[in-house]
């Protein structure tokens, strides 16, 4: 692969990570969904670019799956849920933007420090994209913690999952079957989450988690 190929791959990986940061500070629900869709599209581009540069045609299939499922189906469904449930308002986060940015940056630093020495012998592309993918995963987790709304937690989960696929695409020789199964499990997870949204909504008139927390059996 040419140097340019590397650079573009890294650029795209970086873009995925950048969208993760955007997810961290985005306060509006529709904005969150759009950013998530953008991240998924970028991921698809990463996969396609990998397929092109490394002559691995099965990665085109991965890219197609990501575009169809995560960039179109899920965001559209989330938008529909939003309108059905009527939650357009801003979502309050448990952490201020500044501190979540700092936390995110330190997580990225941590994953770079972790991955680069471990994979010293591997190819350069694999090493750095692995570090970026790990950062995306950690940022998705961070987002799940810092948000108080069930929908945003699901978006955090999906973006975490994006990080996993990013890692899978970066590693050579990842079989298509695995990717397919990941995609399907995400679909299933999404359906279950959707059902839960409606159930929660029906019970508590809100998707904010604190309402749920008061309903968990005996406290001391």
């Amino acid at each position, binding site marked *: 692969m040419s140097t340019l190929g590397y650079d573009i791959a890294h650029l795209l990986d970086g873009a995925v990570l950048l969208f993760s940061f955007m997810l961290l500070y985005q306060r509006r629900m529709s904005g969150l969904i759009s950013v998530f869709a953008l991240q998924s599209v970028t991921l698809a581009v990463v996969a396609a670019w990998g397929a092109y540069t490394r002559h691995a045609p099965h990665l085109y299939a991965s890219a197609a799956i990501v575009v169809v499922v995560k960039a179109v189906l899920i965001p559209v469904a989330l938008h529909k849920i939003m309108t059905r449930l009527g939650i357009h308002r801003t979502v309050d986060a448990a952490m201020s933007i500044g501190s979540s940015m700092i936390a995110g940056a330190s997580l990225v630093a941590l994953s770079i420090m972790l991955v680069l020495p*471990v994979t010293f012998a591997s190819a350069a592309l694999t090493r750095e994209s692995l570090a970026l993918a790990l950062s995306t995963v950690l940022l998705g*987790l961070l987002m*799940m913690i810092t948000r108080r709304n069930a929908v945003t937690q699901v978006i955090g989960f999906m973006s975490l999952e994006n990080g996993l696929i990013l890692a899978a695409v970066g590693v050579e020789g990842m079989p298509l079957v695995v990717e397919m199964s990941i995609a399907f499990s995400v679909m299933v997870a999404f359906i279950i989450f959707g059902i839960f949204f409606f159930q929660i909504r029906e019970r508590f008139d809100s998707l904010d988690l604190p309402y*749920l927390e008061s309903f968990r059996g005996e*406290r*001391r």
Partner: protein
Amino acid sequence: MLTTLLTTIALLFVLAAVGATARPGHGNGFAGTVVYVGTMGLCAVNAVTAVLFLTAGTGDAVGLVLPIGPPWQATHLSLDGLSAFFLLIVNGVGAMAALYGIGYGRHEEEPARVLPFFPVFLAGMNLVPLAADAFSFLVAWEFMSLSSWFLVLSSHRRHETRRAALVYLVMAAIGTAALIAAFGVLAGVSGDYGFAAIRLRSLGPLEAGAVMALVLIGAGSKAGVAPLHAWLPLAHPAAPSHVSALMSGVMTKVAVYAIVRVLFDLSGEAVWWWGLLMLGLGCATAGVGVLYAVVERDLKTLLAYSTVENIGLIMIGLGLAMAFKANGLTALAGLALLAALFHALNHSLYKSMLFFGAGAVLVSTGHRDLERLGGLIRKMPITSSVFLVGCISISALPPLNGFASEWLLLQAILSGPQMSQWGLKLAVPVAGAALVLATALAGACFVRAFGITFLGRPRSPEAASALRVDVAMRIPMVILAVACVLVGLLPVLALTPLTPVVHGLMGTSPVAAEGITWLWLSPVAERASSYSGLVLFLTVAVMAMMTLLIKRFVSGRIRRTPAWDCGFPDPSPSTQYTAASFAQPIRRMFGTHLFGAREMVDMPDPGDSAPARFSVEMKDPIWAWFYRPVVKFIGWTTESTNAFQFLTIREYLGLMFGVLVLLLMLVVVIR
């Protein structure tokens, strides 16, 4: 030999299955008879095997490897002198307890709760001395602990029994945890848990110290070493009497076996202040045990406290052995170890006999409370004379066996000044004083126990109408009494097979082994102190005969006068000494601090004709000082970790995330 032992142990498990088929209801039934007769036979076979091994005198260990157990560790078994000696204790007393159970079980409410566990208990205690790797040792140990727990719980309808069982279970769990850790340290990182491999390892000072502390906690709590003894006077008496006899007489000895095996065989290290520590623990145990025994009202609890005292004496012997060994005086160390092991044997003989006697009293009167007994010597002549033999033995009066072992122990103590450390030079005489004090108090305790139970006049209608007990209950008591007398008169019977055992552990024979002859014991030759039970007995017998002859022929006149007329005009039984009044001087002396005793006199108002009431409240301060803080700490920890059960989803996710990040950071830092 090992195959014989293993076969009988396997058959014991078969008997347990038979016992499990026992129908609930009163009395032994067919299954009960099969279980007890079978157990007795199997234990007798094992006891004979152990005797044969001991008298063969080769002392070489016989090993056997069984391909069962966890994948990384085949089961190693081995029979050496030490194991054989303890197997003799286990099975000799076990056979007697099974015989006793034939009679005792007829009076039991729910024998079906005892029958399945009784053979398992004995099988566990048989396997512990045979185990030659840590894994099988611990499995056998747990068989012993858990089956005895079930046996304690057999009369589960009484509230105190359930509490005792709970305390016992907790202490057993703590003890086993400590033992697991001890074996972990012994095996080290190499992870070979076979005793042979452990013996080859040399431990660092820190490791060896940790092993000693853990074994003293693990096996010491089972034996009843203070301050971990508090469960013992609760649990031992709560079981049926033949099981109490086994727990007090035998299970504590198995714990002693564990201490000896680890400290003198597997670890092999000796540091003088460990000996000092064990001496101190032994003195404290002996003192606390006997003082509580003196003031106790419940006959079986009294016997259990006395077990604590005797374990203290054994610990003094082991501590001395450790101290002598650290000073390189292995011959004297052998003497101390010999005395400790001999005392273990003696205690198992007379303590089980005394528990059998207490069980007989319980069966025929329904009471364990001393204040409701009395005058039983006329109703139960055999039980009371056997109980008297036990009382004389345990009070260390010559010429019985208790005296022989405590005399040997004293001989070892008198050699204490030969050690070089000043701490030991000063501590050993103190230990000797504690030993003598404990023995004297034990004498007072058993004068009280025997006198209040069997002499005087009955203090309750049940005691007045007591019946003699089954022959199956009397035979084992008589056999054990004969054994006590025999070993007392001819201590060489026990000491000759023990000498090679001690030789195997210490590397040299105990001091002046040739000084132990069939007639005379003179272990420390240069001091020329010697003892002969037989000669003493004959002297006493001759003098008694002479006294009788003089009475008969010289002052042959018989006067008949009212008995005790000046001090005892009222024939009501309540004018006699009571158990409480007999113990009062000692309770007053040690009262407030050691017993937390409070005496209250409730006087009626002037003119009121109601009787005045005198009441005593006692509580063991060890609960407040030692156990309550531990319980509080555990409670506090669980309370504070309980909050983790009620976190929000986000907080749970946050916890996981935090741990993940922490671990990743750890990887980065370590790399």
